[in-house]
């Protein structure tokens, strides 16, 4: 485990996911639930697709035009939630949101996502760092009716 308080390592995590986003690219498959997340306040525009299998998240895809913060945070999120149950995923999202808004959170659950722990310092970028996560939440809400 690297020291997650080292800015250089956190920076490398974001750059790595920005340069080589994981699970990026949409898939033509009706079994995926789709959503478009188009930020009102900036240019980020993401399509997100989630395939559920029972109470598990079997797969997650996304694509679109987005900044480094939005792209990397969505990429990390995809790795965190694929294979998890919906309940587990919601718990991760809740902890991530708590981190973004400077509340208590469990860093172990967030793994590389803690690279975004200082987003509050650039308050106008919170939307970028949460766009993918909000999209996933909406899909989960929709699936549970």
């Amino acid at each position, binding site marked *: 485990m690297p020291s997650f308080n080292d800015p250089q390592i956190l920076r490398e995590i974001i750059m790595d996911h920005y340069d080589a986003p994981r699970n990026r690219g949409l898939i033509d498959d009706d079994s995926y639930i789709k959503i478009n997340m188009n930020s009102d306040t900036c240019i980020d525009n993401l399509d997100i697709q989630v395939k559920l299998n029972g109470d598990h998240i079997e797969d997650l895809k996304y694509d679109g035009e*987005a*900044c*480094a*913060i939005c792209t990397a945070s969505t990429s990390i999120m995809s790795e965190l939630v694929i294979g998890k149950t919906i309940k587990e995923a919601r718990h991760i999202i809740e902890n991530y949101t708590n981190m973004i808004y400077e509340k208590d959170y469990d860093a172990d659950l967030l793994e590389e996502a803690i690279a975004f722990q200082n*987003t509050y*310092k650039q308050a106008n*970028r919170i939307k970028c760092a949460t766009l993918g996560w909000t999209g996933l939440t909406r899909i989960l809400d929709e699936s549970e009716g």
Partner: protein
Amino acid sequence: MDIKSIRADFPMLNGVTMQGKPLIYLDNGATTLKPQCVIDKVCEYLTTYSGNAHRGDYDLSHQVDQEFEHAREVVKDFINASTKDEIVWTSGTTDSLNMVAYGYALKHLQADDEILISVAEHASNTLPWFDVANQIGARVKYIPLDEYGCVTMENVEKAMTKNTKIISLALVTNVLGHHIPMKDICAYAHQHGIIVVGDGAQSVPHEVTDVQDLDVDFLAFSGHKMCGPTGIGVLYGKYDLLNKMNPTRLGGGSNTRYNSCGIVSLKKPPYRFESGTPHIEGAVGLGKACEYLQSIGLQEIYDYEQQLRAYAIEKLKTIDQVEIYNETSTGAIAFNIKGVFSQDGASLFNKYGIAVRAGQHCAKILDEYLGVNTTLRVSFYFYNTYEEIDQFIDVCKKGDDFLDAFF
């Protein structure tokens, strides 16, 4: 121009910080900072003669009318209109352009008529025309930009047809910042009976404006982009055209009398268009802003800003990672740092206390011309300095470290 003493007039330039650094404000295309004299003028209304306008039954209200109409007179002189009755108070450029679209075009245009704009126009000079055209079966057409992003007289002539009824263009666009040959366009358009609407949001604050010399039919601009308050702006219209325009809002203040049968007598322009209690402190504040700019000199302001721009361009060109999209224009500078998404770039500037805009700048069809979706934009005003540009340039060189803002 004594920049040091000018800067002393602006509270925002004396002690205000961003991210712990003294503010360097380079987003003047979005809005401008306010000098103390404008702030005082607004506060003076709020503290010493608050009352409504046009209700002059007592001394206080009479004083409001005097100040309110004096401000109209000042604006009239500022753009050299022939009478103050051609100055309509609005909430800003957007409101002014909507009034022309819905109050004039919707009334006078017919199916198959054409409205000419360019792809570099702001949303406020695009979306009202889309809607009006849809409602009456008219068409919005585009004057092609030349290779530098300019609207040329030649391309205006080519785009005009016998169905063209309105040409609506920014005198200086908000992203590319080029001047258009407005005087020539008006002369040519008028030979063909075409009405010309000018969006002056990015031109009026920065240069001498003479609506009679331009012979433009309507001119829209905003107070807050020229050191005035937000929520106040102007629609200039030639008086006979204002007379042919419908008010888009009706209510108190716009009428002289009406009866229960629904017969209404409207006041003459400009009051016909000013229903409801106006933004009185905004209007008097804008009048003061005009006087302040005149005291410095609009030509002096223009010349100094051009020197600042030339200095910034020269420095930007020495940085390999910077791509400039409008080197030759006179307004804002649109650029990108290669490999850095514009919004990530803006956060980097923010970290150093520098206000720079990222995005599409409300010109969402411009990408079709530029070939890039989003840009960074810096826009100067007369209170900016060479030293501020030096600091801006230093940050441009840090493009590779754009994630610094997060750590």
